[in-house]
């Protein structure tokens, strides 16, 4: 099977180590992974803000970039959901507007092969023990698009439960949105910050050393608030936990979160 990584624009630019973690993890599991350089953004920021037409070239680009692959794996619940739920809508609307079936066909090709990382691990590779070691207490925040649009269910939890050394702490009100919501965070900053403050309070209350999600976009918001509040809880993408091994731990502690690449206050 030909497997490509769709790293997403946010990870490419701001969290490259998440993409690196996916590569490390998949290669450890015996999967050769390619990175088509033609890829860029799924178009979610444009689409969700009302600029559907601006997202259309990115649908075509996604289709072109990944046309030669059987599986497209992405470490982002919301970008996977954009492809699966909204690419077909973009195609259908273009057709309804009398602009042919080209976008609909691009969507048809993209949808069935696009997998969020935990789906690919559990459903395609059929592994829940990925041989990871992460000797820390962690709480898991299920991000909305992973939870409700993709229906990831207990896949992330099953993967975390098999990580050696990891202690999972329950997050109260886990299924409530963190308040990021893309441009929502800047269009309605007061409500977004109020939601974020409640999420951060719940995270801190677990006493965990790290909070993990399947989406770095939500984690930028949660982590940004944690940093601003002087919290020691580290935001870390699930992929980085799953990629970690005994050798990493020996090399030095909790090598994730607002460390070398972390945010300033």
């Amino acid at each position, binding site marked *: 099977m030909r497997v490509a990584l769709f790293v997403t624009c946010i990870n490419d630019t701001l969290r490259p180590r998440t993409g690196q973690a996916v590569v490390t993890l998949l290669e450890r599991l015996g999967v050769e992974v390619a990175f088509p*350089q033609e890829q860029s953004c799924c178009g979610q920021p444009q689409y969700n803000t009302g600029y559907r037409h601006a997202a259309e070239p990115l649908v075509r680009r996604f289709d072109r970039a990944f046309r030669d692959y059987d599986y497209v794996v992405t470490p982002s619940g919301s970008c996977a959901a954009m492809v699966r739920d909204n690419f077909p809508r973009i195609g259908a609307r273009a057709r309804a507007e009398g602009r042919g079936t080209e976008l609909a066909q691009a969507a048809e090709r993209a949808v069935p092969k696009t997998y969020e990382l935990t789906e690919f691990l559990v459903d395609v590779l059929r592994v829940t023990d990925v041989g990871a070691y992460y000797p820390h207490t962690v709480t898991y925040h299920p991000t909305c698009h992973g939870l409700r649009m993709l229906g990831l269910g207990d896949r992330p939890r099953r993967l975390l439960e098999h990580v050696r050394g990891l202690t999972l702490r329950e997050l109260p009100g886990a299924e409530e949105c963190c308040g990021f919501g893309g441009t929502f965070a800047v269009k309605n900053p007061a409500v977004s910050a109020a939601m974020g403050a409640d999420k951060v309070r719940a995270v801190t209350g677990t006493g965990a050393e790290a909070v993990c999600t399947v989406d770095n976009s939500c984690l930028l918001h949660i982590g940004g608030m944690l940093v601003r509040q002087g919290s020691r809880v580290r935001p870390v993408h699930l992929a980085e936990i799953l990629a970690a091994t005994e050798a990493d731990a020996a090399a030095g502690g909790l090598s994730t979160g607002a460390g070398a690449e972390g945010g300033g206050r």
Partner: protein
Amino acid sequence: MSRSFLGMPAFPRASAATTRDTRLRANLTHATHTIRDKRAAAVAELDDWAQLRAAGAAIKDRTLRHLDHYLERLEESVTAAGGRVHWAADAAEANRIVTRLVRETGEREVVKVKSMATQETGLNEALAQAGIRAYETDLAELIVQLGDDLPSHILVPAIHRNRAEIRDIFRREMGKWGRPAPEGLSDSPAELAEAARRHLREKFLTAKVGISGANFMVADTGTLVVVESEGNGRMCLTLPETLISVVGIEKIVPSWQDLEVFLQLLPRSSTAERMNPYTTTWTGTTDGDGPRTFHLVLLDNGRTDTLADTVGRQALRCIRCSACLNVCPVYERAGGHAYGSPYPGPIGAILTPQLRGLAGPLEESLPYASSLCGACYEVCPVAIDIPEVLVHLRERVVQGGPVTRGGARVVLKPAKGHAAERAAMRAAAWAFDHPGALRGGMRLAARTRRLHPRRLPGPGRAWSDTRALPAVPAESFRDWWRRTRDGSGSGNGSTGGVT
């Protein structure tokens, strides 16, 4: 009694104020979480909830597709059963009709059943201008009316008030409207309910005209259905001599059999009850039983225009259960008043801009009053994909386009105030479609990362006031890949395989 939703500020401004109101936040969090948890338990009891939900959506969709047919059928049935049917194209016409009908009775006072349609039309204010006093008899609506307040929730209009506030309102205001609150009234729920009961009983026994809405109208038989928990509605529906019901045209179902679905969906979704406590049905008039005169005012007020929108029309399936409000994290923090209409929360964010049109800054801001978390869609008993409609309306805001207003096709201009955003979105889309330029930008950002500010000026403050900015790493993923993996600079052609 003159407060109205007219002229309310846009959602971000209104909600910025309400998120700072700690008492309001506490009242709302307590109330919404309580109802939310109960609903989840009540829904989980039914094995066939998913099928019921699909059936509810299908019945509504089919009925809406043939709405003209069913409305005429309803008019025939109601007329045959002794009622009179009036057609109101908009709120003003509905209010004129009701005012005239009340005047014809010679009465100056009416009792009201809790009704969203008459909140939507501002009927109480219209009646007041005509010298007619309308008494709200739903307990929560009574609290809102006595407090010169606005409703903030579809099912629990006084959800923003706690018991102590309600006691103060009763003590201060009840005497001005009728029987005063008893001496030494406490804030115990039983005492508050008793005070309201005695105050309202006087109105029920003297009123000659009742005004209601309806949850459902059965086209086959001309039967109207009101679903409530207190029994106060039934008092208003049975004791007066004249009953006037103002009902949105989308409330129609073809037959009694269809009610079977909705009378399961609605109580569990709204109050988490297995069966609704007071379900009143009436068909025209019956000699010696109930009102002798029955008027049905069918309200359009933007519904036909909404029906013309193939994506947005699903909002008309709504059965006003308010499950979406109770799970919405934005509603919980902003409160109902910030939505500037009797329809708050997620459903209000898609209903108000469609019923009123994108008429001003408030309506244009409502489609953005959501993080698109999808909790509303998940609990909606008629499967309205609220996030889908929100995004659709956002497109309408920033792009304009053809819409139906007042039954005519018009082309809407893009809303003002989005020019910078539009330019930024187009620039981003261009950059993302030109990876060479994008890579150059990323490298520039990486090289200058020590110079990046910790707080942003202008619109960026909305982010950096409460959150640290993410630092830009020294190397993007794609540069790392090219440096370590792929000297040729192209990942295309390198194929993977399970070894």
